[in-house]
């Protein structure tokens, strides 16, 4: 106890140390936010598909991979970066639609776990395809606005981090406006809330689900494009992304777009703060222990749908 008090007072006297720990914290914080923003986008993709179709899509990470890899290869072929990114989004959307039409729609009525296995199969398939179509190397993209770090109160932040954060914010806003302010967006929510009633008011639920897969693929691809200049990419980055994105979506509460974002950012922060203040070796463990604790306390996630029982 006395030792602790001495430690405490020492910290307060050591102003320089306090400054250092403040800038350290900011460094952790911004790194966590950047990493978390990507998890948030992946989680958002999970949420969109889950909302429309009740499917948990474990191939979600593959959209991130496609976004990065297609952009890399298109720009290597001489296509200007913005156009290459657009091509990548289109490719991902096409893959998302095909995934729905060829693998998910034909399995209509299968159990949830069967459909999860289908998406895992799709993930293996897409990874295998990327390995043949591209290669097995790691690749990078140039940062969108240079590599000179920006100093924020002693923390060095890459300009690309702001792109990631801004991109995430934009994606979330667009999705929010789409879901809350457009009739088609509400039709997505309606489809998720009550498939039968949705069909009875004339919503083409198959189209809505295809839309969700396409949109989710686009979000994933955007995440891949934004983050590749920081994290590099390769044909098999998807598995880890899917794992973290799924964790983030569950942490926030499956089915809630805002929850996905909160869950993603929180997971990113848990990881970096865990690495910074607890132990870098056990940082993933720290993150998952926190997830378990939160879920035990709130079994529906932080912002989960308070189950309105479906009839």
């Amino acid at each position: 106890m006395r030792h602790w008090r001495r430690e405490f007072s020492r910290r307060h006297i050591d102003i320089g140390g306090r400054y250092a720990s403040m800038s350290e914290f900011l460094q952790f914080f911004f790194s966590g936010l950047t990493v978390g923003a990507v998890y948030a986008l992946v989680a958002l993709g999970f949420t969109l598909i889950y909302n429309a179709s009740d499917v948990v899509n474990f191939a979600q990470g593959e959209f991130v991979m496609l976004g990065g890899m297609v952009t890399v290869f298109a720009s290597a072929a001489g296509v200007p970066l913005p156009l290459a990114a657009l091509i990548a989004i289109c490719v991902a959307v096409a893959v998302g639609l095909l995934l729905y039409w060829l693998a998910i729609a034909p399995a209509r009525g299968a159990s949830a776990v069967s459909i999860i296995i289908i998406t895992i199969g799709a993930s293996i398939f897409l990874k295998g395809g990327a390995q043949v179509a591209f290669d097995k190397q790691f690749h990078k993209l140039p940062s969108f606005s240079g590599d000179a770090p920006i100093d924020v109160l002693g923390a060095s932040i890459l300009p690309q981090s702001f792109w990631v954060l801004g991109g995430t914010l934009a994606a979330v806003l667009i999705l929010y406006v789409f879901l809350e302010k457009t009739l088609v967006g509400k039709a997505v929510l309606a489809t998720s809330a009550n498939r039968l009633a949705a069909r009875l008011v004339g919503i083409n639920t198959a189209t809505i689900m295809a839309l969700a897969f396409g949109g989710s693929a686009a979000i994933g691809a955007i995440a891949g494009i934004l983050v590749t200049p920081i994290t590099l990419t390769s044909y098999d980055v998807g598995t880890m992304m899917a794992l973290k994105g799924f964790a983030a979506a569950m942490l926030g509460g499956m089915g809630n777009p805002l929850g996905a974002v909160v869950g993603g950012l929180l997971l990113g922060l848990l990881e970096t703060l865990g690495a910074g203040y607890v132990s870098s070796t056990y940082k993933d463990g720290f993150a998952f222990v926190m997830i378990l604790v939160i879920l035990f306390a709130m079994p529906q996630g932080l912002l989960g749908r308070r189950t309105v029982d479906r009839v």
Partner: protein
Amino acid sequence: MTTLLNNRYAILAALAVVIAVLPFTFPSNYYLRVASLVWVSAFAAIGLNVLMGKAGQVSLGHAAFFGIGAYSAAIGPAHLGLPSWASLAIGACISGLLAYFVGRPILRLKGHYLAIATLGFGVLIALVITTESRWTGGPDGMPVAKLTVFGWRIGTAYAWYWLSAAFLLVGAWIALNLDDTPTGRAFLALHDSEVAARVVGIDVAALKLRAFVIAAVYASIAGSLLAMMNGFVNPDLAGFQHSVELVTMVVLGGLGSIVGSIVGAAVLVVLPQALTVFQEYENLMLGFIIIVSMVFMRDGIVPMISKLIARAR
């Protein structure tokens, strides 16, 4: 044939015949190795099927128990001087106890929340195994002492074939007989409807927990067997990919079907071996086959086949 698939003694007899005949068709010991792998994986899958097929609970971290069993078989003889078979038993006890204590809070969660919680648990165990290298040899793994039973060292491919097959038969027998016990009947009620089961006075939480413990013990024993058979363990055995593989075996073969678990394990072990001829297209093919089989056999291979046979009648 359908009645055959439903009669448990017929299933066991058929399985025994297959096990006895197969080695005569094998051109080399390599096939014994692959078959032994199938038996061991099937053993784990049967256990997981009790949890998934009968209690209706999914676990995406089940390889953790597999890993605990495997590392028990490795650490027991290497660090504690225990005999291998005792290490196997201790591993099974540790897994069962861990499942009992972890299962209580985890199984309160539902659906995908349960999935992520088990996944997190699996990641934690795998992380501990990878990190505590003084005991586990770290990410590169560690060697495992050969199994010795009554001074007889089990090392040959044949010995392992028969041993793993014997374990599988016993494991399948226990799982099949579960239906006749009060627990098994309670599972049936639970399978129909959780609410209904609760109404007739079944302690649903305790029942799920029992299934979780059973599944953990099965996985642990399978892990120990594989470790001793390979003479080597590494953290992959406890990893997420392996968990997914186990779940895929169960679902592909057919939820709730013991034969299905064996078939699922066989497919997932043999397929990558067969697909090596496609070289770099291997993963493409594997993913494609998984998708196609789940789309066209959504209930799994074995239930689908028995349905087809029933319809042909």
